[in-house]
C-alpha cells in the first residue's frame, strides 16, 4: 500500500503530535524530579497529615554520637506511654534539641529519618504480631561526647557559645550554647519560657547569636589588605600612639595600650586597633565589600540547620570614621560564631570551605545503612596563598601576641583573639577566640565567645587550650 501516498497525510498532525509528546515528557520529568527531591521538605511541613500517620506507626528513632553513645531515645514507661529521653541532660540541649512543643536541633533536622522506619521485613512481621510499633531509624551525628563535655565545663556559668569543627570535612564535633536547658523538661517549662519574652535560653548562640566581631574581624581586614597589596603588605609599618581620631570619632587600643612601631605581622599579633584603622583608610571599599560578600557576610549560610545572617555594611559611600570602626570589628557589624568558625576553617583548609554538618549517617534498627552523608565542599573562600599568609599571621598571634597562653605546648596552635565592646558602658566586652591546631596540619578548629567576660586573650584562650588538650591527649 506504500505505492500511493495519502494526500491527507498531514505534516500539521505530526507537528501537534510531537508537540504534545514533548509536553508530556517535560511533565513526567518534572513530576519525577519534584517528588524525588521534595519528599523530606514536604513531609516536615506541619500541614502534612502524613507525618501524624508515621508517628502513629513508628517509634521515634534514636540520636547517637559519633562514638555510638545515645543522645536521645524514645522509651515506653509501664503505662505504655512513650517518653523521649535525653541521657546527657543539658549537655546537648541546643544541638540535639527537643521534639515536643515544636522541634529544634537534630530532632528537627533529621525528623524525616527519625519518624520513618526501614526495619527489615522479617522483623516487621514479628513486631506486628506482638502489637508493637516499628522502631524508627537511628541518626548518627558527628558529635564527640568528650569534647562537648570539656567545652561545656570550660564555659562554666558564663553565657556564650563554643563550636568545634573539623576543617577538612566540615564535621561539627561539639556545639555548646549557654544558658542551656534540659530537653526532657521542655514541656514543663514551656509556658514559663514563652511568657518570658527576654529569655534567650532556646536561642542556639553558636549558630544564631549575632555578636560584634571585635578584633577577630581583623582577619577580614588583613585579607583585604593582602589582596590589595599582594607584593608590598610585608613593608607595611605604622607608629601606634594608642589612639586615633577621625572627625568626631575616636578609637583606642585595648586598655589604651601604646604599641609603638608595628609592622603588618605585629599589628595582627598584638591586635593593634589604630594600625588596623589606619590600614582600613587605604582599602578600596567596593573591593572590600566584594571580599566580605565572598566570605558569606550578608547572606544565608550554606548549612542545613537554622542560622542567622551576619551583617556588615561597606560600600563606596562608607565614611572614613565608619571605616575606622569597621576595620576593627566594632560599630554595626555583627557575626555569628558559626560564620567565624567557617572562615577560620577555610583558612585552615587552604582556602576551601567544607560545609559544616552534624548528621553523619542514618541506619535502620538492625544496623544497616539507610543513608550516609559525606563531606561536601562549598568552594573557595580565598586563594591558597592568602590562606597560607593568614595562617602564619595567626600562628604569630600565639607565638608573640595576644594568644600566648597557647605557646610552647605539644602542638602548635594558631588563632585570633577578640575583645568586642558592646553596650554603652566602656570596658564591657565579649571575649572571642577563633583558631585551629596543629598549625602546620590543622585537625580541629575552635571558635569561642564568652559574653561580657573581658579580654579574649585572658578568658577565651584558656578554654581553647582545654579543648585542644582534650583532643590531642
Amino acid at each position, binding site marked *: *500500500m506504500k*505505492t*500511493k501516498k*495519502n*494526500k*491527507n*497525510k*498531514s*505534516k*500539521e*498532525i*505530526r507537528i*501537534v*503530535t510531537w508537540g*504534545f*509528546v514533548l*509536553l*508530556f515528557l517535560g*511533565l*513526567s520529568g*518534572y*513530576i*519525577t524530579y*519534584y*517528588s*524525588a527531591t*521534595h*519528599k523530606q521538605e*514536604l*513531609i516536615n*511541613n506541619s*500541614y*502534612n*497529615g*502524613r507525618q501524624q*500517620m508515621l508517628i502513629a506507626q513508628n517509634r521515634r528513632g534514636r540520636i547517637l554520637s559519633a562514638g555510638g553513645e545515645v543522645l536521645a531515645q524514645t522509651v515506653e514507661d509501664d503505662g505504655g506511654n512513650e517518653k523521649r529521653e535525653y541521657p546527657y541532660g543539658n549537655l546537648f540541649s541546643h544541638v540535639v534539641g527537643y521534639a515536643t512543643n515544636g522541634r529544634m536541633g537534630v530532632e528537627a533536622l533529621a525528623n524525616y529519618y527519625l519518624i520513618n522506619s526501614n526495619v527489615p*521485613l522479617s522483623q*516487621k*512481621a514479628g513486631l*506486628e*504480631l506482638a502489637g508493637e510499633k516499628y522502631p524508627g531509624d537511628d541518626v548518627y551525628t558527628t558529635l564527640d561526647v568528650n569534647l562537648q563535655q570539656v567545652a561545656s565545663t570550660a564555659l562554666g556559668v558564663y553565657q556564650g557559645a563554643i563550636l568545634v569543627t573539623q576543617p577538612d570535612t566540615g564535621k561539627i564535633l561539639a556545639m555548646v550554647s549557654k544558658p542551656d536547658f534540659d530537653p526532657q523538661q521542655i514541656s514543663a517549662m514551656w509556658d514559663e519560657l514563652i511568657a518570658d519574652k527576654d529569655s534567650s535560653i532556646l536561642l542556639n548562640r553558636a549558630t544564631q547569636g549575632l555578636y560584634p566581631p571585635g578584633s577577630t574581624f581583623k582577619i577580614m581586614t588583613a585579607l583585604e589588605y593582602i589582596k590589595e597589596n599582594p607584593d608590598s603588605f610585608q613593608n607595611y609599618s605604622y607608629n601606634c600612639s594608642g589612639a586615633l581620631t577621625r572627625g568626631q570619632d575616636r578609637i583606642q587600643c585595648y586598655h589604651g595600650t601604646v604599641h609603638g612601631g608595628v609592622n603588618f605581622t605585629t599589628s595582627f599579633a598584638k591586635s593593634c586597633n589604630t594600625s588596623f584603622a589606619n590600614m582600613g583608610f587605604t582599602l578600596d571599599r567596593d573591593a572590600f565589600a566584594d571580599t566580605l560578600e565572598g566570605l558569606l557576610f550578608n547572606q544565608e549560610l550554606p548549612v542545613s540547620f537554622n542560622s542567622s545572617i551576619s551583617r556588615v555594611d561597606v560600600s563606596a559611600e562608607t565614611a572614613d570614621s565608619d571605616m575606622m570602626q569597621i576595620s576593627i570589628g566594632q560599630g554595626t557589624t555583627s557575626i555569628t560564631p558559626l560564620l567565624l568558625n567557617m572562615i577560620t576553617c577555610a583558612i585552615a583548609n587552604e582556602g576551601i570551605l567544607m560545609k559544616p554538618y552534624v548528621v553523619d549517617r542514618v541506619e535502620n534498627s538492625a544496623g544497616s545503612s539507610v543513608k550516609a552523608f559525606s563531606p561536601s565542599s562549598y568552594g573557595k573562600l580565598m586563594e591558597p596563598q592568602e590562606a597560607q599568609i593568614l595562617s602564619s599571621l595567626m600562628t604569630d598571634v600565639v607565638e608573640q601576641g595576644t594568644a600566648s597562653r597557647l605557646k610552647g605546648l605539644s602542638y602548635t596552635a594558631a588563632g585570633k583573639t577578640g575583645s568586642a565592646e558592646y553596650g554603652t558602658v566602656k570596658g564591657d566586652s565579649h571575649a572571642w577566640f577563633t583558631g585551629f591546631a596543629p598549625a602546620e596540619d590543622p585537625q580541629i578548629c575552635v571558635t569561642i565567645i564568652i559574653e561580657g567576660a573581658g579580654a579574649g586573650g585572658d578568658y577565651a584562650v584558656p578554654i581553647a587550650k582545654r579543648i585542644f588538650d582534650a583532643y590531642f591527649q
Partner: protein
Amino acid sequence: MSQLEIYISEFSRYVIALLIVLYTCESFAVFCHAQENRKGGYVRQSFLMFAFHFSCFVTICFETEDINYLFFYAFQQIMLYAFTVLYRMLYPRSNRLVSNNMCMLLSIGFVILTRLDMAKAIKQFIIVAGSLAIALAIPFFVHKFTLLKRMKWIYGLVGVAALGIVMILGQTTYGSKLSYSVAGITFQPSEFVKILFVFYIASSLYEESGFFEVFTTAVVAAVHVISLVISKDLGSALIFFIVYVLMVFVATRNFWYVLAGSVGGCGAAYVAYQVFRHVQVRVQAWRDPWSVIDSDGFQITQSLFAISSGGWFGLGLYKGTPRSIPFVETDFIFSAIAEELGIVAAICLILICISTFLMCMDIASGMRDRFYQLIAFGLGVTYIFQVFLTVGGGTKFIPLTGVTLPLISYGGSSVLTTILMFAIVQGLHIIRQDEEEALKIALKKKRLHNQRMKRQAKEGPRQRSYPAGDEIEDEEE
C-alpha cells in the same frame, strides 16, 4: 495482621507496579509492529490488565479485611470483559489498542475510586456500564450516518445554547457554575459540548478553510469560550480554545493561525487575569501556594504532599491519606494514584494516555476523508489536553484549572463523554479501514487493467513469447 498478610501487602506494591509497567510497554510496542502482527500484543495486554485489576482488588480485600470487595471486582471484570468481547464481535475491525487502553484506564479508576469512596465507585460503575452500552452502538452510527457532515449549525447552536443555559441558570458548584439538573440527574453540559464543538469545527472547515470560514468559526468558538469563562469553568474554556486553534491549524495548514491564536490567547488570558478575581487567585496559588496554604493554596499543597510521599512504588493501597486533599476523587485523583500506587504507576498512567493519543493521531493521519480526519484529530487533542490540564494542575506544573482526569476521575458526564469520544474514534477507524479496503480493490482493478493493456500491447507483435514472469512480480508488490 498475620505474617502472610504483611508479606502480601509489601509485595503487592511491586507486583502492581510491574504489571502496569509491562502493560505500558505493550501499549507502545504495538506501534512497532505492522497491523497484522499486533494481535499477540493485544492478548498480552488483556492478560496484564486482568492481572493488574485482580491484584489491586486482592490488596483491597486484604487491607480492609472485607471479602465483599471481590464481588464488586467480579462485576467490573464481567462488564469490561463483556464489553471487549461484544465489541470485537460487532466490530471485528475496531482498534484494540484504543479499547484496551480505555478498559485499563477504567480499571485504574475503579480501583482508586473504590479505595477513596465506595459509594461513589458504585455510582461510577453504573454510569460506566450505561456508557459502554451506548458506546456499542456509536461506531455503527458514525459509520452509516453520513449526514453528520451537514449539520454544522446544529452543532454550533446546540453547544452555545447548552453553555448559555448553564451560564444563566446553572447551579453553583464550589464557586463555578457548571451543571444543571434534569429529573434529579445532574449534568455538566460543558463535557458533552466538547464533542459537539469538535464536530462543529470539522464540519465548518473540511471543505473550505479560507479566511471567511475561519472567521465565522472563530466567532462561534469565542462565544463558547467566553460563556465558559463567565461560568468560571476555566479548564474547559482553555480546552475549547486550544482545540479550536489546533483544528484550524490542521484544516488550513497555515502556521500563521497558530501564531495569531497564541497572541490572541495570551492577550485574552491577560485581560481575564486583570478582570476576574478567580483567575488571579488560581495564578497566585500556583506561583506560591505555601504563602496561602490556609486558603487558596490548601488543595494544591495537599496534592503535593500526596505526590511526594508515595515514592517510586507508592505507600500501598489504604496506606496513605489521599482523602486529605479536597475533591480528590474528581480533580486530584492523579495525586491519590501517585501516593498509593507510586510515581512509577503514575508515570505509566500518563504514558498509557499518550499511547491512546498517538493511536488517535495515527487514525487521523490515515483518514482520506478530510471531515473524519478533523474529527479524529479534534477528539484526540481534546482528550490529551484535558489530561495535561489535570495532571499538570495537580502537580503545580501549571495553574490549577479543575478538570477531571478522563476515564479515571469520578464524574458521570466526564466518563460518559470520554467513552463516547473513543467510540466515535473507533467508528472513524472502521471507516478508515473501509477506505483502505476500497482503495485496495480500486488499485487492484487498476493494476489488472494495466496488466491487461500491457500484455495486449506486448502480445501483439511478439506473440506470447514471454511466460508468467510479469504476473509474479505484480503479486509481490
